[in-house]
């Protein structure tokens, strides 16, 4: 009798497919796929990819060493050139957000909490295996501070020193030097040599990927739009972990399908749907909550200015002399100069970029997402709001995090925002 009660019932290993993370990813993916009609067929590749990786927990293959990166500022081309595979570790699942909460203060960026949570748990989704090195550019404060926590977890962390003043010549030279040091570090890690050939191939790999993204980016200028924002976010989120060759081929197939849609005059949304520019903290699968809310209540996210999509893939490297020394420096410049990340002291580039996007995509309104606790985006909200007031463009500021509990309230606010844009457009028309 006694051993009956004292026998502790072991927690059977719940098969992953029914675990909470899978559940969360499952609901979001189903919502993306089922609640919207006529998704492009070539999106099926991405839906299957996410279902396999996020819902069934299939492991993600990589050849050579695995180098995890926590920010877009880590030069991928160098990692590819040394034969390793870069994978972005930023995580968007609420499950890991709660797990990471015991590392971070309560009011801090959910993205960093989720990343730390994911790295600390044994079952890492997406199942990319244990990164041989994590490259942590010293961009925003919370990512900077999380590097020591990551090394406490036993990972080999390399701090890539990134300047915070973009305009000065000193910071440019400083960043070029730290990228060169990063190349030396990669050589020690992988033991391979950086040659002109393999660096050129790496540049070409990402070059083709960026060219494909740009084509998609240009297709989204069409009004009425050909593809919904949630699909575009899914595509760019797949870039985090998917094999770059397959990803590029899939995006090129998607571009062809959009080409037919464009010719056949297909409309993904009715022409009255308000066109929204999404900016601020990056929506990372499964936290595509805000874009989905916008598109559920009749809006369409035509373009974005976030580091999980546009900012990551838009700018391309220009090389003057195809020699290793010049290619590495061009790479460094490509990551620093055009970047519109809020961690810099001045954000004129971001403002001009937003205004240019508004003008070239004829956007009706802007949704500005800031994760609770992400001071850089919150502090930059004022200057961006001023700029948009001057330009007469309505902007909705949403401070949210990964938890779904403010969905109800957010949907009301978004719906009201979309309706005010519809009125504005009706009166203007």
């Amino acid at each position, binding site marked *: 009798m006694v051993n009956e009660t004292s026998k502790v019932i072991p927690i059977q290993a719940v098969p992953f497919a029914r675990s909470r993370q899978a559940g969360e990813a499952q609901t979001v993916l189903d919502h993306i796929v089922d609640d919207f009609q006529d998704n492009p067929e070539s999106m099926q590749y991405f839906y299957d990819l996410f279902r396999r990786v996020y819902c069934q927990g299939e492991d993600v293959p990589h050849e050579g060493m695995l180098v995890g990166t926590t920010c877009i500022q880590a030069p991928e081309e160098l990692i590819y050139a040394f034969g390793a595979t870069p994978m972005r570790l930023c995580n968007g699942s609420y499950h890991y957000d709660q797990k990471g909460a015991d590392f971070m203060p309560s009011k801090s960026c959910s993205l960093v909490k989720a990343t730390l949570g994911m790295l600390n748990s044994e079952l890492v989704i997406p199942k990319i295996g244990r990164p041989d090195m994590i490259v942590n550019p010293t961009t925003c404060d919370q990512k900077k501070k999380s590097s020591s926590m990551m090394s406490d977890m036993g990972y080999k962390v390399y701090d890539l020193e990134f300047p915070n003043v973009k305009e000065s010549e000193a910071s440019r030279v400083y960043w070029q030097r730290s990228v060169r040091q990063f190349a030396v570090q990669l050589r020690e890690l992988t033991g391979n040599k950086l040659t002109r050939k393999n660096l050129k191939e790496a540049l070409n790999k990402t070059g083709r990927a960026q060219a494909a993204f740009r084509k998609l980016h240009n297709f989204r200028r069409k009004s009425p739009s050909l593809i919904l924002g949630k699909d575009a976010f899914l595509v760019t989120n797949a870039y985090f972990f998917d094999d770059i060759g397959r990803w590029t081929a899939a995006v090129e197939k998607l571009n062809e399908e959009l080409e037919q849609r464009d010719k056949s005059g297909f409309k993904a949304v009715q022409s009255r749907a308000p066109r929204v520019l999404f900016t601020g903290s990056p929506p990372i699968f499964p936290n595509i909550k805000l874009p989905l809310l916008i598109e559920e209540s009749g809006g369409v996210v035509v373009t974005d200015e976030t580091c999980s999509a546009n900012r990551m893939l838009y700018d391309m490297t220009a090389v003057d002399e195809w020699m290793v020394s010049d290619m590495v420096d061009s790479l460094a410049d490509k990551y620093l100069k055009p970047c519109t990340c809020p961690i810099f002291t001045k954000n004129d580039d971001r403002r001009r970029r937003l205004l240019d996007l508004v003008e070239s995509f004829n956007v009706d309104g802007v949704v500005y997402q800031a994760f609770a606790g992400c001071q850089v985006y919150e502090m930059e909200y004022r200057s961006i709001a001023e700029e948009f007031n001057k330009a007469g463009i309505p902007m909705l500021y949403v401070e949210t995090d990964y938890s779904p509990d403010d969905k109800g309230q957010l949907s009301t606010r978004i*719906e009201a925002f979309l309706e*005010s844009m519809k009125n504005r457009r009706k009166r203007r028309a």
Partner: protein
Amino acid sequence: MKYFAGIDVGSTAIKVAVVDGDGQLVGVHVTPSGSLFHKNSTEALNTLLTKVGLKREQVRYLIATGYGRKLFKEADDSFSEITANAIGAFEAGKAFGGVRTIINIGGQDSKAIQIDNTGNVVNFAMNDKCAAGTGRFLDVAARNLELDLEELGDCHFQATAAPLTINSTCTVFAESEIIGLLAKGHGKAEIIAGIHYSIASRTVRLAKRVGIEDRVYFDGGPALNKGLVAAIQDELGRELVIPEYPQTTTAFGAAILARSEFMDDAEED
């Protein structure tokens, strides 16, 4: 004669309003929501129609708003309560010489909306996840003080001493604080006045976020409570415009929207 109806399926009460062809209010009706949203809503609509002697077919366009707007299938269209409230306040405010800022304290949320001179929403703010400063806060307080909601207003004016400060903002903690104050022998009036002032200060802070412009319109259920109105006017330092039926402004706005949507569709086809 064509009629148009707007139904505001709120968390605590369902409000229905019917408007005639040229936008004049015909009649309103308020019933508690209860749990069966759908049944109660259709029932409320029918009782209002019989009250004003109209048949269902005469209502050519019906718009639902409020929390349950998506659940009420019968409506022709649905709008968020912010837009509906803005239109309703704009129309109702014309009688008082034009309204630019709207404060709405509903059952579960409190909103501050700023509109331009054509009734279009310029900026709005809502209380985030917590119910402090909403109608529910008053219900809890009334229950603790064994008073009815209607009596709260008069009780506020019977206060002799200065209103007590209720420092905990959260509805749940406020309850224990009220009981503590009662035990200390403070008068009910002073406690009620304190509650009113705490709601008022929170609401004014919310209004400040959207910017306050002249003629502030105050609606929603708690607007019936004279004491709360006085407290807000004191905090705001400005006269408040209180409509005849403050609870049904959003429903009235939805009806007006129904009429203009109907007119637009008529123009289109």
